[in-house]
């Protein structure tokens, strides 16, 4: 049995359709976020920004942006562990993700 039907393989998702190109939205713990801005600098997809007044700034995902690749660079640079992607992105049709399990931290076997 094929993993993808012919019909699925022929379907290329629309780049700007959020139902067809499902990009992760990172989760942000607003209690822990200190608005340091480092995550917005290292995000390769440029989907993060800080908002709020001085002294109480927080990170958030930009409203109009697509493209988070779940690389977790934001998590890697966050001193407070306040931000991170918990899932991979997915697509419909030709690019549908196959054979993926859940996200996991490095596991020692």
């Amino acid at each position, binding site marked *: 049995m094929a993993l993808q039907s012919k019909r699925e393989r022929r379907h290329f998702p629309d780049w700007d359709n959020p139902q067809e190109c499902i990009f992760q939205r990172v989760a942000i713990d607003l209690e822990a976020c200190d608005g340091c801005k480092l995550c917005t600098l*290292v995000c390769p997809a440029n989907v993060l920004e800080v908002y709020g007044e001085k002294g109480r700034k927080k990170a958030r995902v930009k409203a109009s942006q697509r493209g988070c690749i779940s690389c*977790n660079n934001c998590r890697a640079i966050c001193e407070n562990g306040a931000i991170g992607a918990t899932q991979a992105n997915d697509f419909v049709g030709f690019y549908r993700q196959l054979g993926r399990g859940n996200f996991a931290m490095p596991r020692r076997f």
Partner: protein
Amino acid sequence: MTESNAAVARFEDAEEVERSLGRVARISEVPEGADWNAVEQVMLQRRSIRRYKRRQVPAHLIRRMLEVGRYAPSQGNCQPWKFVVVRDADVIQGMEDYCVAACQKLSRGLDYTTHPVGSWRHRITRAKARLFNRLQPNMLHPVPMTVVTAIAEGRFAVFHRAPTVILLLMDTRGIGSPEIDIGICGTNIVLAAQSLGLGTCWVGFSKFLNQSREWCARLGMEHPFELTEAITVGYPVGDPSHLIARDTHEIAWLEGGKKEVLY
């Protein structure tokens, strides 16, 4: 015994030879659940770094990285690589400008998301993109296409304003699949960099430079050599060393006459 049988016998006897010599090499036992060793730690902490300090990387560290690159495994030991190290800001800027212009052309020609839905421009570029998507499904994946437009609009830098850029050139006459050897060689380089406290990022968009006769001549990308990947190098901004979660992938495990699926 025929010659080929002799060869098989020699292969099977390898352990016997060791024993007969009385020089049995020790097996290092790693207990279950052991802490990460230094190499594993480096591999787990490596991130693709796109924000660098302005400070230049000492030349001897670049030489160290290339030195371990030289020892990467390759098919038939063909070593199908050639390195170009660029450390002049104006040359890197020139490469940047060329790749940005190429992205602008690509974005204008194919990225329908920049046009209002229903407009004739949207319709035409979308039809073109659909066609090219079939022809070049790897190039026109939705992820890099968002980046192409970000580069075209100046929201993203191709070479990340890094102080040093290493170009990995491939000898296209390499044995088997030389692209794989370039990947392995580059992996040695970026892991060495990580262990030296440096940050790196693979830059596939650098391949646009192959289309420029001028850059090919300037950087030595002439037949049989071809630019395959670039690696930016520099000191990372901030401390991107916290461990992160990643996807798990299906592992088919065949043992004891059974097949199990693990993640």
